[in-house]
Structures are given as C-alpha cells and as structure tokens.
C-alpha cells in the first residue's frame, strides 16, 4: 500500500482553493497590514495607480472646459488657484512621484538589474521623492 502524503485528501476535496505558503494571495494587496515593505509598496503602487487613472479622466474633463472658450477656462482658473484645489495638486504630485519612483524600483528589480537591492532602492528613491515633493509644494504655494 502506498503512503499518501499529508494533505492529499484535502487536495481532492471540492471547493474553493485555499492558498498557502510563500507570498500573498493575488487579490490580497488591498490590505497591506502585517506585511513586509514589499507588500506595502505593491499595495501603495496599486492605490496610487488607480488614483492616477481617475485623475486622467478628471483631467480630460477639466481640459474640455477649453472647448467652451476663454471665459469658461478663466472661470476654472479662478477655482483652480484656491487653497483647497492647490492642496489637491500636492496630493496629485505625491501620487505621481510615488507611482513613478516605485515603478522605477519595480522595473529595476523585476528585470533583474538590481534584484537584491529592492529595500535600499525603496528608501533611496523615497528620499528623492520627498525632496521633489517639497520642491513642488514650495513651487505650488509660491505660484499663488
């Protein structure tokens, strides 16, 4: 009689696949709690990406005001230079910087160029992003 390995019976049962082992479930990125830095970075990349897709269509909508001529665009400029709107611009820059810089990290790690330096890359690109965000914020505040 051949010995059956542990879990063989469970594998034959019908029902949902229970994931187990290294890594996170593919759909589990939405909740990064208790995960390592890579899990948090991946989750934040997804969230900022979806936010930027939303902004892409918002931006197209705003640019449609140009079709209405000079008056309609100038009305928008008055709204866009309010403090509330400029604060959202800072949030947008944060999203762009995070998604872009983390994208560089993912491309470098995923392509094997610096496969074993992802943590160092995250922190160093994070420093670059923080400096760029501060500079952009000062520019946005100064432009008002």
């Amino acid at each position, binding site marked *: 009689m051949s010995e059956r390995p542990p879990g063989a019976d469970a594998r034959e049962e019908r029902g949902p696949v229970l994931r187990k082992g290294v890594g996170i479930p593919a759909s589990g990125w939405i909740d990064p709690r208790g995960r390592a830095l890579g899990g948090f970075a991946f989750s934040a990349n997804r969230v900022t990406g979806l936010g930027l897709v939303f902004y*892409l269509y918002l931006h197209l909508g705003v640019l449609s005001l140009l079709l209405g001529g000079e008056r309609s665009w100038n009305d928008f400029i008055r709204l866009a230079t309010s403090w509330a709107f400029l604060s959202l611009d800072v949030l947008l820059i944060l999203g762009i910087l995070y998604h872009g810089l983390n994208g560089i990290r993912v491309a470098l790690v*995923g392509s094997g160029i610096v496969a074993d330096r992802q943590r160092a890359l995250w922190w160093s690109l994070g420093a670059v992003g923080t400096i760029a965000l501060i500079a952009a914020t000062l520019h946005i505040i100064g432009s008002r």
Partner: protein
Amino acid sequence: MATIETRPEGSRKARARSAAAGRSWIATTLTGVALLILLGVHMVANHFVVESVGGLRSYRQVLDYIRHPVILATESVFLLVVTVHAMLGVRGVMLDLDPSPRARRWIDAGLIAFGVLTLAYGYFLIGTLASRA
C-alpha cells in the same frame, strides 16, 4: 516515497497565458519608462515654467503652446502612452481578482474599447485646440 504533483506541467493555454503576462509586464514597464520622460516634459512645460497665477496657462497661452508642432506631437504621443499604461494597469488590477477565461476576454475587450474611446476624445480635444491656435 509517494509524491503529489503540486505544480503540474503547464498546458498550452497556461503557457500562452504566462507568455501574455510577460508581454503585459514588458509593455507596462516600457510605457512607464516613456511616461517618466513624457510626464516630466508635460508637467514642467505646463505648470513649472509658466508665468501665470497658480501655474496654469491662460486660454491664449494654451493655444500658443499647442500650436507648436513639436509640442503637438509630444502631447499626442503622451496621450497614447498614458492611455496604454493606464489600461494595462487597470487590467492588472482586474486580473488580480482571478477572473474566468471568459471574463478575462471581456475585460480585455472592454479595456481596449475604453482605451480607444479615451484616445478618440483626447485627440479630438487636441485637434480642436490646435485648429483654434
């Protein structure tokens, strides 16, 4: 000792899906790299070197900007690249939900249609503004 097959040899469909995932990753990465340059140019040109309140171009400045052939071409390529990158990103998020092959085909078709509509509207917008310049 008995063994259990935990990672069976991939079927032709599974291999094709894996190759498609690889192509999708490469396309996302390439468009992402292109976006770093194009978005940088777009942001600086539109919001950081403009002498205007709030870093926004006035109506007349927008028309003057889009009139330049190099800018027109750059913004057109930017629209294409950002749309492809966005659709690939949304596809990645949706495929994380592990849809059935049939749902996957619907997702692909829907995102292609949505991307084409986005491009059509974006180019209409760019074309209309360029024609007014």
